[in-house]
């Protein structure tokens, strides 16, 4: 009977084996079925994707070819182009799929337009899916037909048209995770808190400046700033001024020893210029009569305030005059008024765009500019309850209060304060001829904050030496400067403004970092 037991075992074993085989066969069959299904689907997909030539990711543009293709800018998409088939390059601002449709908002600088891609005879399901999955901020080329719309598209800048997409290609893809969302970056502060939606704080913006600068607000701010620079140049050129460039690596601190950056200069050290002051004046002594310069200014001031930067752009003026330094004040104030008028008349779009996120009162001014004397300012402040000495410098809160008092009475955001006390001005300031306690110096204010400090300069080498000694300045260090006045020097005066501060105050913004593209302060050196 052993024979039978072995057989039974064998039978049992073969039963197991059979079961195993069966299972494996089932598995294999399932797998095969699946694969067959996939293959079938793929085939189907390939077959159904009749639009696969009309979308995709372009190879990186390495200047492989010269395409004779005109790209229309988003801002030019208007009803006049209705029914035209055009190419547009823009960023994906938003993309949203809804069933068989995909809505895109395309953006270029401050301008946005809606684009539509729908499954139909021009676009396949796969194409729509591709469009819906594109990451925000990617740069794409789109071929589309411009269509007029019945109802205005309120959320876009181009409200009267939309694009019906025919082809869509990615030129440069963006990573999916953005360090900040653009719509958060343009949200007004109050609104964010109210509706529980995010706004972006300043440090995040500055750390990711490249993206922050893409917002409509930033685009408007810096275009306006470019306008300020342009108007400054144009006005002065028309008045007969010559533009000069002054050195920034200098051998002696011009304003005083404390706030200057030192750089190593071969075997010795040098300084970064705190202002073009000394060189502007030397140009006057060299008979250029009226000069201006636009360039960086470096101040190593460890103040972390809303209005100080360690590096900013200075717009400086220096002018020889005939008999009275008021000739120069008149010239400077007229230049400022021309800048304000130019901004008021030609940059309203930009001003409105900034006001959407940062509402403020429009900037007001008088022509000719209001000029008050320092004594008057002290009297006005005293009448308002401030206690201060007659020859004391104005503190920042007092300047702000004075600005408000002037605004109340004269309704102007810009004015000049003339005849400052001598004691609070630099050594090269010309003293007042009738009262030695005062000087021929002046400050100009915008919205109650100082934007320009200027004066008639001492053009006599003897007096200059006296004044320098009085201020305890090392004469050796400024020898070259004093020497320039020894060979006949015309009476002259001037002043300088900071581009970032003027833009900030004109727009009614509250932090100078908003108007500096890549700001520098004691805590920030990058980007």
């Amino acid at each position, binding site marked *: 009977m052993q024979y039978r037991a072995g057989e039974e075992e064998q039978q049992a074993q073969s039963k197991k084996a059979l079961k195993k085989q069966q299972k494996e066969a089932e598995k294999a069959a399932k797998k095969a079925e699946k694969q067959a299904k996939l293959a079938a689907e793929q085939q189907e997909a390939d077959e159904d994707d009749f639009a696969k030539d009309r979308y995709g990711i372009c190879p990186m543009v390495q200047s492989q070819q010269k395409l004779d293709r005109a790209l229309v800018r988003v801002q030019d998409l208007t009803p006049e182009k209705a029914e035209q088939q055009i190419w547009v390059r823009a960023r994906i601002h938003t993309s949203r799929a809804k069933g068989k449709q995909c809505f895109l908002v395309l953006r270029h600088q401050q301008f946005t337009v809606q684009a539509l891609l729908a499954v139909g005879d021009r676009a396949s399901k796969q194409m729509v899916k591709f469009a819906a999955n594109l990451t925000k901020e990617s740069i794409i080329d789109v071929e589309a037909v411009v269509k007029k719309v019945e109802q205005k598209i309120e959320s876009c800048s181009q409200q009267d048209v939309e694009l019906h997409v025919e082809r869509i290609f990615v030129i440069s893809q963006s990573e999916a995770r953005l360090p900040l969302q653009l719509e958060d970056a343009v949200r007004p502060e109050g609104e964010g808190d109210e509706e529980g939606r995010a706004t972006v704080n300043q440090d995040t913006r500055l750390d990711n400046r490249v993206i922050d600068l893409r917002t409509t607000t930033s685009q408007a701010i810096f275009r306006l700033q470019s306008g300020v620079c342009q108007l400054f140049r144009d006005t002065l050129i028309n008045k007969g001024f010559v533009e000069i460039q002054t050195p920034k690596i200098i051998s002696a601190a011009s304003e005083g020893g404390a706030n200057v950056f030192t750089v190593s200069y071969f075997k010795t050290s040098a300084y970064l210029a705190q202002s073009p002051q000394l060189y502007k004046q030397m140009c006057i002594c060299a008979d250029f009569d009226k000069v201006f310069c636009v360039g960086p200014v470096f101040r190593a001031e460890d103040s972390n305030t809303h209005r100080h930067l360690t590096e900013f752009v200075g717009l400086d003026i220096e002018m020889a005059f005939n008999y*009275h330094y008021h000739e120069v004040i008149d010239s400077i104030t007229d230049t400022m008024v021309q800048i304000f*008028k130019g901004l008021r008349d030609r940059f309203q779009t930009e001003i409105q765009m900034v006001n959407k996120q940062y509402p403020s009162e429009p900037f007001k*001014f008088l*022509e000719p500019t209001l000029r008050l*004397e320092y*004594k008057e300012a002290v009297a006005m402040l005293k009448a308002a309850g401030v206690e201060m000495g007659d020859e004391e410098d104005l503190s920042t809160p007092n300047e702000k209060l004075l600005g408000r*008092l002037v605004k109340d*009475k*004269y309704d102007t955001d810009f004015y000049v304060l003339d005849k400052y006390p001598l004691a609070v001005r630099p050594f090269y300031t010309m003293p007042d001829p009738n009262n030695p306690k005062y000087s021929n110096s002046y400050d100009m204010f915008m919205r109650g904050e100082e934007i320009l400090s200027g004066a008639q300069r001492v053009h006599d080498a003897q007096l200059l030496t006296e004044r320098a000694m009085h201020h305890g300045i090392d004469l050796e260090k400024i020898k070259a400067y004093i020497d320039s006045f020894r060979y006949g020097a015309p009476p002259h005066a001037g002043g300088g403004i900071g581009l970032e501060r003027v833009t900030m105050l004109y727009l009614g913004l509250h932090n100078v970092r908003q108007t500096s593209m890549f700001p520098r302060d004691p805590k920030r050196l990058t980007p």
Partner: protein
Amino acid sequence: MPMYKSPNVHGHGMNCGEHALQNGEVDPSLKALEERQDEVLRRLYELKATVDGFAKTVTTPDADLDASTPSPGPAESVFKGTADLDSLLGKDLGALRDIVINANPARPPLSLLVLHALLCQRYQVLSSVHVHSSVSAVPPPLLSCLGPRHIDSYARQRFQLGFTLIWKDVSELQMKFSTQSMCPIEGEANVARFLFRLLGAEPQDPAAATQMDCWIDKAVFQLSEGGSKDRAAVLRSLNAALGRSPWLLGQEFSLADIVCACFVLRAGQTTSAPVNVQRWLKSCQNLGHFDCVYPFLQ
């Protein structure tokens, strides 16, 4: 021109001075005749000037004119009262006491220009004109309406009073002085009343003061803001009052005359105004203070 031609004793086209007697001298009797003729002509001119002066004096009771000057300038000082700026405006603490007036360039405040001229005669006034950024451009006469810029205008401290006119897009004329202690004054007539007080010439008698206010209100509400019927009624009242006395308040020139005359002039059609009104307007013109107003009338 001689009244009749006298036959030329010595020849044609020569005057006697060129004619010497045979011994080379000019005839002294001829010289004397010439001199007498010059003297007569000179006295005739003088008489004419005096008569002109008197004519103006008769029609313009307050004019204090020097009758021998052929072209009279503005009166030396029409108002003889005294005013203390320190008590009216507050002590001079070192800040220029600056009166700021915001006016719409479409409706220049003529009476205030007249008052400005009067203030300038009385005090050292620093006058300035500005254009506010709310207005894009202003015709040149409006920029020079306060006269030429004072030479010393760079030394604000030397002046007793500031008069700053700002052309601005405002619906109602507005004056600001001490924003800490005074609310703005609105309306040309009200500002005129304030400025008039600085001249120290307001009538002390309450009845006269009330009458003055009455005339000013008539000018504002009926002449300026009223329809053609109202205007005609005011002109009739003016005519009646001016039939009884040279000025609206009687013998004294006052703010009532300034305001009413300016409003009448601005309304236009002065040639068709009643007789007494026309005479009165001429008197106002003769005083000289209204010269600044004429460039702004159509």
